[in-house]
């Protein structure tokens, strides 16, 4: 089992630790629901050192990635970030990722659970391309600050970089906690404003503690993976192993913003399969709420009368909406906003209502 450099810090904070994707990680420090509320109303700090970080340098980094990813890498301006996926030829998702376009290559943030497979997948497609692939996961820490006060907290510790000028899904480099060249991106997985920062791994405990101290006046709290999952579900964001996996393609998962069928991108792995699915999708992803007490869980089946029409892929109590929520796949034809369905919970039925995603969207300033 891997541990992040912050493992002992989490234990000292009395976090409940769980095994996640091969890593020993904090699932919650406090009440999971209170942690969600903290991020929605103030600011929270996340240890994301388990996430995979890869760089691809060399003259052919961009063209090679345009063969492998769903998004159009050559179109990303230097300093910008886009969401994309690796897919198989049949359109099934191998992973989803963030693509950072740099002057001399690409930096990728991938899921911890898929990092080894991603690396193998990339390396098996480098023939004929001038590229150098490097795994930075163990040498770099990754932390996220999420919530409306993120900028105020991070700016207190950041020199030579005006965070207010850093736009959403852009990145830059600055001096944070005295460390030069820290990668700072305005990204996150919560639906709130926020930042993700990357710096030498050994500095993680110091930076973590300085961020908590700087955020004290704003009510900052450390946030575990449990609340992170609820936050992303409220915001309608996909999680690998739930909304997407090798059996669930990004078209039916409604991830069109991360897929480019532009002619100029050329052929890419999964393109023809995904085009065919787009022309004739079988199922659609939807949000679902329920007034019942039971929490939707992955795998619960959905019915209209006696007809099975779909299934739950993620579910949670939502403190923001004050109801139980889920993301579900339903057969095309049953995917209208407002459709009433019944969820089978281990033999008992609970009535639910479908709605368009996301459940929660931050009001733009």
């Amino acid at each position, binding site marked *: 089992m891997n541990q992040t450099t912050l493992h002992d810090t989490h234990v000292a904070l009395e976090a409940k630790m769980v095994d996640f994707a091969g890593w020993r990680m904090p699932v919650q420090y406090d*009440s*999971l629901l*209170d942690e969600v509320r903290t991020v929605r109303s103030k600011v929270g700090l996340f240890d994301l050192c388990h996430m995979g970080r890869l760089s691809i340098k060399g003259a052919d980094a961009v063209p090679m990635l345009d063969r492998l990813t769903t998004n159009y890498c050559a179109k990303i301006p230097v300093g910008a970030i886009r969401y994309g996926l690796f897919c198989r030829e049949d359109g099934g998702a191998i992973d989803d990722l963030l693509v950072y376009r740099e002057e001399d290559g690409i930096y990728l943030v991938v899921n911890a659970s898929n990092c080894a497979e991603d690396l193998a997948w990339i390396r098996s497609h480098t023939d004929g391309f001038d590229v150098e692939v490097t795994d930075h996961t163990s040498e770099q820490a990754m932390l996220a600050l999420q919530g409306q006060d993120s900028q105020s907290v991070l700016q207190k510790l950041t020199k030579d970089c005006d965070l207010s000028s850093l736009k959403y899904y852009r990145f830059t480099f600055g001096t944070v906690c005295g460390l030069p060249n820290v990668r700072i991106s305005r990204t996150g997985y919560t639906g709130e404003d926020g930042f993700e920062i990357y710096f030498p791994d050994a500095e993680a405990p110091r930076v973590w503690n300085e961020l908590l101290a700087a955020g004290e006046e704003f009510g900052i709290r450390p946030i575990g993976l449990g609340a992170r999952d609820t936050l992303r579900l409220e915001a309608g964001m996909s999680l690998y192993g739930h909304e997407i996996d090798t059996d669930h393609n990004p078209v039916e998962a409604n991830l069109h913003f991360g897929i480019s069928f532009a002619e100029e991108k050329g052929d890419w792995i999964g393109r023809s399969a995904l085009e065919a699915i787009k022309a004739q999708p079988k199922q659609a992803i939807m949000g679902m709420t329920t007034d019942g*007490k*039971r*929490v939707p*869980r992955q795998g619960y089946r959905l019915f209209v009368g006696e007809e099975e029409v779909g299934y739950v892929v993620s579910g949670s109590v939502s403190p923001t909406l004050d109801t139980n929520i889920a993301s579900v796949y339903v057969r095309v034809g049953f995917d209208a906003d407002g459709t009433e369905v019944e969820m089978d919970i281990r033999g008992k039925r609970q009535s639910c209502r479908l709605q368009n995603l996301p459940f929660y969207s931050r009001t733009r300033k």
Partner: protein
Amino acid sequence: MRPEDRKYTKSHEWIKIDGDTALIGITDFAVNELCSGNEGDLVYCDLPEPDRELEISETFGEIESVKSVSDLDSPLAGTVVEVNALIEEHLEILCTDPWDKGWLIRIKYTSKDLDELMDAAEYEEMVSQEQH
């Protein structure tokens, strides 16, 4: 130390014999696994109707927290004679007092084979290993 006036199961139920009936509940360890000490994280508890016949190891209910669902299994065979009606609306009782006010069901047992079950010291030992 947990109460010594009762027996414990590997799945973290407790059984307290009271004449020809027995009270069944779940331990503080089980509650903590579900909600990590945050009573607000418990969301649902489903208990059986009175008169329900139960076999040994039969699932008689479910308890659910924000993060997971656990079955409640009967360590004894018998008939449910009473259900703690307070619990379904006041799950916080399970956090504050799992041993007395937090009992779940009372059953009139037809078999009382408690030898397979643990006493408090043995349960303590098992739990300390699970906490690793």
